[in-house]
């Protein structure tokens, strides 16, 4: 198997890594091993969810994102803050102050992603309503890490993924087109930037799984921008920014997607393990009457991303309060509310920009099925001989993982410390047995002689 080169924004800082196995155990695709005392990321398995970065006690993972000096490359820079950005501030901080702060950091124009979310919600609503014949439930496509998890672990679910753009991408397409027309600038002179709560978005900009050609120039770490923003919030507040309603704002936390699409027979699943479990169940057709499943790889939704500054529960509370304030000023009906905010002309439709999601299966043991069957048998034998403690001390996530690595020639049985202990014990016993059979050739004569004399 010769996998294509995969770009990853999640990287290991080797000198910080202590070789503990926290990340190995947290990884949903078993993409990390500890070998020779350091973690190693298996590029063809990693889905850039950031679970490793979130859990690492030594902060040994770095996330490759853009830096503000990147703005200099462009004549005009547009930034796309998402609800996850607003969630970092208590609702007493007006959105206007946040926008002005972004302007102070060097961005010429600001476009609110929550508005784009509403157009995407509409597309989802229509698609779900018109969906007939195929297997259910449909699965949301807005979290790129979920898409990659499906490619890698659940390729059989690709047909159930709703073909819509992620809101930030749709927003980027829209603002880029508008700026080109308005300013008469060439596209390469315009920088369009996302402020991302997670590494997943940056990876999707560099190597998209769902968009033919991204309209984004890059993404910044939300936590990094947050730190800079704190020092320059507010100002003239003369910017003209169109925003979404409470429904678009809801997308920052779990449940926002299905409520803005008006879907009731639907689930909102969040957190790596939960997403994995639900996809597994969908794959076995355990939820055939459900219409839709919203999946967020991060716990509590995008606000739980590993590039956020604020605690995810505080962020959720901040966001829900902002939503409540907006909602108190909106019509009761969702349809009316969204219709009054969705007034942009020619907002892009997803279909023209999407490409087909392709399978990236990594589960199989060998390209040749007969070979794979032999390896499976051996793997079962090896697994049976291992202690089954899933301690991770060998550097693999579980005994099963080690067994797999062993049959693939990537690990050895004595990587298991219990196996090693057994081997050392056996060796030691062998030496004792051997020692008994060795004739003692020369006693320390003089000493013996002295002892004899003393008796």
């Amino acid at each position, binding site marked *: 198997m010769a996998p294509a080169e995969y770009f990853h924004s999640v990287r290991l800082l080797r000198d910080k890594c202590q070789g503990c196995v926290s990340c190995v155990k947290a990884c949903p695709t078993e993409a990390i091993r500890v070998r020779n005392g350091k973690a190693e990321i298996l590029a063809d398995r990693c889905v850039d969810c950031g679970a490793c970065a979130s859990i690492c006690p030594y902060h040994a993972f770095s996330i490759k994102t853009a830096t503000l000096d990147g703005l200099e490359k462009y004549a005009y820079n547009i930034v796309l803050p998402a609800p996850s950005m607003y969630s970092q501030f208590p609702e007493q901080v007006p959105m206007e102050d946040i926008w002005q702060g972004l302007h102070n950091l060097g961005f010429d124009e600001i476009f609110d992603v929550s508005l784009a979310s509403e157009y995407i919600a509409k597309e989802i609503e229509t698609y779900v309503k018109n969906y007939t014949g195929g297997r259910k439930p449909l699965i949301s496509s807005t979290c790129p890490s979920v898409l990659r998890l499906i490619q890698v672990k*659940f390729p*059989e679910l690709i047909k159930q993924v709703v073909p819509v753009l992620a809101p930030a991408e749709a927003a980027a397409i829209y603002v880029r087109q508008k700026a080109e027309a308005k300013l008469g600038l060439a596209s390469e002179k315009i920088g369009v930037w996302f402020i991302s709560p997670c590494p997943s978005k940056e990876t999707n900009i560099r190597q998209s799984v769902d968009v033919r050609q991204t309209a984004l120039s890059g993404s910044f770490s939300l936590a990094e921008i947050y730190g800079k923003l704190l020092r320059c919030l507010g100002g003239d507040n003369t910017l003209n920014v169109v925003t979404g309603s409470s429904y678009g704002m809801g997308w920052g936390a779990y449940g926002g997607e299905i409520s803005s699409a008006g879907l009731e027979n639907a689930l909102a699943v969040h957190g790596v393990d939960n997403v994995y479990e639900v996809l597994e169940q969908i794959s076995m*057709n*355990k939820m055939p009457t459900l219409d839709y499943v919203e999946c967020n790889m991060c716990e509590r939704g995008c606000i739980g991303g590993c590039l956020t500054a604020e605690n995810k529960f505080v962020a959720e509370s901040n966001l829900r309060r902002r939503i409540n304030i907006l909602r108190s000023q909106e019509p009761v009906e969702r349809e009316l509310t969204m219709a009054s905010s969705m007034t942009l002309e020619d907002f892009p439709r997803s279909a023209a920009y999407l490409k087909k999601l392709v*399978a990236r*299966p990594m*589960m*199989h043991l060998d390209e040749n*099925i*007969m070979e794979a069957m032999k390896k499976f048998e051996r793997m079962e034998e090896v697994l049976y001989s291992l202690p089954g403690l899933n301690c991770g001390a060998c550097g693999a996530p579980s005994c099963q993982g080690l067994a797999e690595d062993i049959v693939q020639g990537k690990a050895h049985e004595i990587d298991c410390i219990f196996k090693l202990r057994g081997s050392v014990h056996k060796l030691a016993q062998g030496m004792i047995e051997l020692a008994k059979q060795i004739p003692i050739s020369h006693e320390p004569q003089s000493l013996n002689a002295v002892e004899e004399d003393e008796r």
Partner: protein
Amino acid sequence: MAENKSLKLSFDVIGGDFERAGEASAKIKKMLKMIGVPADIVRRIAIGTYEAEMNAIIHAGGGNVAAEAFSDATVITVSDQGPGIPDIEKALQEGYSTAPDHVRQMGFGAGMGLPNMVKCSDEFDIKSVVGEGTTITMRFEHISEDL
């Protein structure tokens, strides 16, 4: 056909054990993925096996779920020593169900089990004797419909 080599997995399932229901199917699914059976085929096998596993758990007080994977096909056999099916023809109709209310309330027993198994598999066989038990055999060819 060169079907000399095969892999076998077999699991006993316990009647009424909804907590562990689906485990056998999940393990079979994992094995098939690991040996490289195409994803769409694995899915059909998993769905068919899960339906049969659930039937054994709901109706038959448990049974055995077995898979034998060859290079070109997989055969699933689910057998039980349950009450048996008096009218197989009827049981194969969509929507027909004998599941008790408390099971239906859990979302099972919609009368789609056997029809789904027929739909999923390339060959389907059912043998049932009232008072003795039921054996379902499903064969799935490893011919992918996807690219």
